[in-house]
């Protein structure tokens, strides 16, 4: 059991990285990977929101939706829970970490429509995870996403110093190229662990 949880955690970060193998959460991935600082900050809030919503959605799904046979509305409920958590996060940041709030600007509400968040809730249903597995899976996925965006942001920051990106590739183009190369290097982890 413990081994299984550990393998979920490692798999979500390396072999089944949600950004690099499933290509989820690409919108903030591209727009916020310009600087390491914002990428890291965004990653932290994704970790917070994904873990929180994963756990909340598991509780709501298994304690409320399954007993009442209302799985039908699970998509809507998941989205509502995600939206509310993001709002809460926004309020908490504004109150206690205004600096971080300023550097996110409008990007913070993007977490609401970040597919990583919804994907984690949907995967946990499809894969029939229990509560602990869900929390670990959610946390791991978000850590994996953060790892991917910080690696890409670090490379982009370095690249922007040398400044010799061809004009046609600047911006989103070079980000996709970098993400592709990073994804290829992550292929080196394949076979280390597997999840269903």
């Amino acid at each position, binding site marked *: 059991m413990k081994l299984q949880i550990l393998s979920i955690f490692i798999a979500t970060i390396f072999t089944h990285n949600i950004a690099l193998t499933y290509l989820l959460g690409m919108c903030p991935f591209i727009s916020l990977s310009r600087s390491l600082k914002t990428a890291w900050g965004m990653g932290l809030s994704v970790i917070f929101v994904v873990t929180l919503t994963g756990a909340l959605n598991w509780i709501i799904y298994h304690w*409320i939706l399954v007993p009442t046979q209302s799985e039908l509305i699970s998509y809507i409920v998941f989205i509502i829970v995600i939206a509310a958590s993001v709002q809460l996060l926004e309020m908490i940041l504004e109150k206690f970490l205004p600096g971080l709030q300023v550097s996110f600007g409008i990007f913070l509400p993007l977490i609401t429509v970040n597919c990583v968040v919804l994907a984690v809730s949907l995967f946990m249903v499809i894969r029939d995870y229990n509560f602990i597995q869900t929390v670990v899976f959610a946390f791991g996925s978000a850590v994996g996403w953060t790892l991917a965006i910080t690696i890409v942001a670090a490379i982009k920051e370095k690249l922007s110093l040398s400044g010799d990106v061809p004009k046609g590739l600047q911006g989103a183009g070079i980000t996709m190229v970098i993400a592709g190369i990073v994804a290829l290097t992550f292929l080196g982890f394949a076979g280390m662990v597997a999840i269903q």
Partner: protein
Amino acid sequence: MSLIPILIMVLILFVITILLALAEHLLVNYGECEISINKEKILNVIGGGYLMEYFTRNKIFIPSACGGKATCGHCKIKILSGGGSILPTEEVYINKHEKEAGIRLSCQVKVKNDLEIYIQEHLLETKMYKTKVESISPLTHDIKQIILKLIEPETISMKPGQYIQIAIPGTEEFRAYSVASAISQKDKVELDIRLVPGGLCSTYIHRVLEVGDKATITGPFGDFYLNEASDKNIICIAGGCGMAPIRSILFYLTERNMPRKVMYFFGARSKKDLFYTEELKELERKYSNFIYIPALSEPKASDKWDGEVGLITNVLEKYITNQNHFEVNITATYEESVTNVESYLCGPPPMIDAAIAVLNKKGINNEDIYFDKF
């Protein structure tokens, strides 16, 4: 179908709403803040909202088209203290000089503490007007003339060439239109509105608005208006709905018996895009000081057009013959020498840019060129 899922959903929504309301009450509470405007006017407000909202609530109307989404960049004001640092959403609209001067978008500045701001004096005089549509009539195949009768307040005073904003019902958005009527007629405003394919406001005005409907406008706005103190001769250049502010300027001048020489170049595609032609020809007959030169860029054979053909810039180049004395060759028999010229331009941006280039080449400096791009 069972009702349980719906009930469950309502219940979940209910709980989440209560939780959020509670969190907002506990976390987002800035207490009372003081907004000092130009060191004269002080607004005491409960913080937490955006500056723009407090302006609207206190009847201060800053130009804005997008309804606070930071997509139009019109609502610029100067923040002297208390605004915090500029947000990434604003950077797109605020250049380096403005940034250093403390210019911000008022729809993005959240009021969290006491603020000291500067708003241009004339913006403090803008008001919101309730109006009623008095008439709607087509001017061309895609331009309609709308006359709004002011109800509350009953009169508006503006400068010839300025614009007002009209609220689009059901949204928080506004769109700006130049006033085409005489400013001496204080109880009505005339707008000339072209139907823009897919345009939110023009579609509403062309397809939905009817005579007798209510409309809300704010204004007057804009620093494009006739320099009333000047006695320089005038060259007006307009295209499409750029006719509107020029018409207002012409009304102003005809009411004073056309004291300055005016040449009006109007560019259109074909004859069906021309409007107010008779009215302007009549002015030409009445005042020797006024000349109207419409030019068609793509006249149709059926137009039987015997006037100028070509882009308005080419026509301009042709008429202005001597760049040192700025002589204007109106017809072979009529030569007008005009020195001391100022120019008023209104129309689509490419046209304005091209026309300014021609005027510069002919020796008119930028400080004598006033323009309004839309």
